[in-house]
């Protein structure tokens, strides 16, 4: 009897886990959606002055890649015309025109959002040409030392080359390469030549460091392909860069980040600021760009005006779960099955304190009215209708008085579930009649408590975000509800009710 339900619940839990894992590992979603993501405000400014004729300024800009999103871009061009070019190696902003005598300020602003790139891998690069060398012997010498290395796997090849670069003492003296090269070429050319000879794709990268601060020159480093990713190395090849994640590449093909023709640029500066962006924005920017299946079916794709509703709606089942627990495991009664959940929803309009007061007030006034109506001996449905009218009249009066005395909050009743409240009055009356005022008050307190907790749950930004990003969590809520539905054990309240059976006597 129990098996199918338990299996179904188990299935739902597993499905949730699979979807969660897929989103976290496959799509790179944050494990804790509410943990603060990295966001940077990127600013570039420069002062450009023409030599007389037209000036062309080309500036490498950050580009999107897995785990990195660029939004809110803005270009300031003064009197120059501006164009954005997209090339294989990156994006370039190009300003063209003639500046005035005092030059022009050009600027670029963008918001950069970062997070784990998920399983998306950079694609394998192709081997580039040798860096420009003056004669063939140099290339031959390089090939000679790297001869044996070609048998090693890529990471070890890189490591060995770095060791050669770092420690001149360990080099076999017969190697002529360094004798030829040192002093005549830059360290980076040496390094690139060796990498090329060892068939390791490598490149010179210019960019900036994503840490709070201002720099006037871009940073240059070298990246070598280790078969999986690009490994960052300092320009002299003396060390590997451990904080590569904080580096933002601007050009990767050795071209300069800033290039001017027909003019001069001064005062270039890159200004990086850490930003606190709303969690919603952060996730929205990521998900609404992705073409992965689950991302295309994400709730973030709903029109924003409906998203608000779903944020709350997705949490309502937790309230219901709470009631399941309260009733079937603890054994604490509430008025009506989902009345507390509806109350909690209405608290969103009224606020908690006023909401709870309404609840108490309505029950009190309603009970008095109900006692009086009892004498009139009205039939059920008309009697409830009279109560409903009465309650609404009371609220209207309250709102009018509130307005007079400037109490805004008493007007904000929203669409409180008045009908449900009226039914609660009826239930309260019956419980008082049949079980006494104590039980009735207990039940009211229980209902208010559940409404309160449910309100806290549905108001939690963190939970809203979590369920919005991972709506599959609802499946596991359903699973828990199913499990409670098949919980045939004792309720906690029964420990008390049947306490006679627990004494050894």
């Amino acid at each position: 009897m129990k098996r199918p339900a338990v299996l179904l619940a188990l299935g739902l839990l597993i499905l949730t886990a699979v979807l969660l894992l897929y989103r976290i590992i496959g799509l790179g979603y944050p494990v804790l959606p509410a943990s603060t993501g990295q966001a940077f405000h990127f600013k570039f400014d420069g002062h450009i002055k023409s030599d007389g004729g037209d000036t062309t300024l080309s500036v490498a800009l950050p580009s999107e890649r897995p785990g990195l999103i660029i939004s809110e871009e803005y270009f300031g061009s003064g009197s120059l015309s501006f164009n954005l070019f997209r090339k294989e190696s990156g994006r370039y902003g190009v300003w063209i025109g003639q500046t005035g005598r005092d030059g022009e300020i050009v600027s670029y602003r963008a918001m950069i959002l970062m997070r784990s790139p998920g399983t998306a891998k950079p694609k394998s690069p192709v081997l580039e040409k040798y860096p420009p060398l003056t004669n063939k012997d140099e290339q031959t010498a390089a090939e000679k030392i790297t001869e044996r290395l070609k048998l090693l796997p890529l990471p070890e090849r890189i490591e060995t080359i770095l060791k050669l670069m770092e420690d001149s003492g360990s080099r076999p003296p017969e190697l002529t390469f360094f004798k030829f090269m040192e002093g005549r070429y830059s360290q980076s050319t040496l390094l690139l030549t060796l990498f090329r000879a060892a068939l390791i794709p490598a490149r010179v990268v210019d960019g900036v460091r994503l840490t709070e601060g201002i720099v006037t020159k871009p940073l240059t480093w070298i990246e070598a392909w280790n078969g999986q990713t690009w490994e960052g190395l300092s320009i002299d090849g003396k060390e590997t860069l451990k904080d590569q994640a904080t580096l933002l590449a601007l050009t990767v093909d050795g071209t300069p980040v800033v290039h001017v023709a027909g003019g001069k640029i001064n005062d270039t500066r890159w200004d990086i600021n850490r930003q606190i962006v709303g969690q919603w924005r952060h996730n929205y920017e990521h998900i609404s760009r992705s073409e992965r299946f689950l991302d295309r079916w994400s709730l973030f794709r709903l029109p924003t005006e409906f998203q608000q509703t779903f944020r709350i709606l997705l949490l309502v089942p937790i309230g219901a779960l709470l009631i399941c627990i309260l009733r079937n495991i603890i054994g604490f009664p509430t008025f009506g099955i989902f009345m507390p959940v509806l109350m909690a929803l209405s608290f969103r309009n009224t606020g908690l304190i006023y909401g709870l007061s309404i609840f108490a007030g309505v029950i009190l006034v309603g009970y008095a009215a109900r006692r009086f109506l009892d004498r009139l001996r009205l039939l059920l449905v008309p009697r409830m209708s009279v109560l409903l009218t009465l309650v609404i009249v009371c609220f209207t009066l309250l709102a009018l008085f509130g307005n007079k005395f400037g109490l805004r909050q008493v007007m904000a009743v929203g669409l409180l579930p008045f009908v449900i409240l009226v039914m609660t009055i009826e239930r309260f009356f019956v419980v008082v009649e049949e079980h006494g005022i104590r039980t009735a008050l207990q039940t009211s307190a229980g209902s208010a408590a559940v409404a309160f907790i449910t309100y806290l749950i549905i108001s939690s930004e963190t939970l809203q975000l979590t369920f919005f990003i991972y709506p599959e969590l609802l499946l596991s809520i359903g699973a828990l509800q199913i499990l409670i539905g098949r919980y045939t054990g004792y309720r906690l309240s029964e420990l008390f009710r049947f306490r006679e059976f627990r004494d050894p006597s």
Partner: protein
Amino acid sequence: MIGQAFQQLKEAGVLGINNRNAEYIMRYNPRSLYPLVDNKVLTKRLAKQYGIPTPVLFHVIENYGSMKNLKTMLEDIKEFVVKPASGSGGSGIILIAERTRNVFLTQSKKVVTLEYLSYHISDILSGIFSLQGHEDHAIIESLIHPDQVFSAVTYQGVPDVRIIVYRGVPVMAMVRLPTKDSDGKANLHRGAIGAGIELGTGQTITAVHKSKIVTHHPDTGNPVSGLQVPHWDTMLSIATLATDMTGLGYIGVDIVIDRDRGPVLLELNARPGLAIQMANKSGLLKRLEDVDAAPDGIFTTPEKRIAWAKENL
């Protein structure tokens, strides 16, 4: 700690409400059969087919229109009971014990008029007392005069015997004795006493009052244990037949003893409460499991089932 407490209840064979609902009510009581017990008119009709006595049905009032004739309907009935066909928990029941032409006296000596009665009946019709608030019918039936046996331990009202029948086997029984607290009503949660009955002999054993074990009636001061329930065997056969009659596998049968007619079936209940366990100081679950564990073919006739229950429970 809690786990240990649960274990103790389990060892005592106590039936919890979740277990009752999921494993017994949901499994053995198909929803479609509920009307047979929730509607007392249908119950009466069925009982008649099976030769089980019920309070004599004088009238069923089904709509407001027929209330015009209330006066003529009641013309030659001296004592009667007005109750909702689908009521529960004793609400909406008026017991009329005496009358003159236009004035009626309830059993608790309250004077009511014909007008009051017709108001009350229209309340019933509107569904105030019915389980789901649906429109209801009103029943006018004969008044039961309780047998004298329990008079020493009853404060007003009519005591009734509740027997739980599982798959046609009576498994547990108690007699509910009204007290001053319970206002003459035989509902335990209103403060009536519940005295467990030994199935084999029909004698009361222990009793509970407001979930405490008691030995004497709080109002009359007489002992409540060791009383012999009269017509015990007849009661067991009425109870046993209730399963054949309704098809419900887990059912509470309420029987009252009329001074003149003997045991009379008052009502059937598809969701009988669990307090009977306290009255008997014995767990229901254990007995239900005993029934399930009994060898096949042993429960072929009602007689065999009763005999088995008397012997084994």
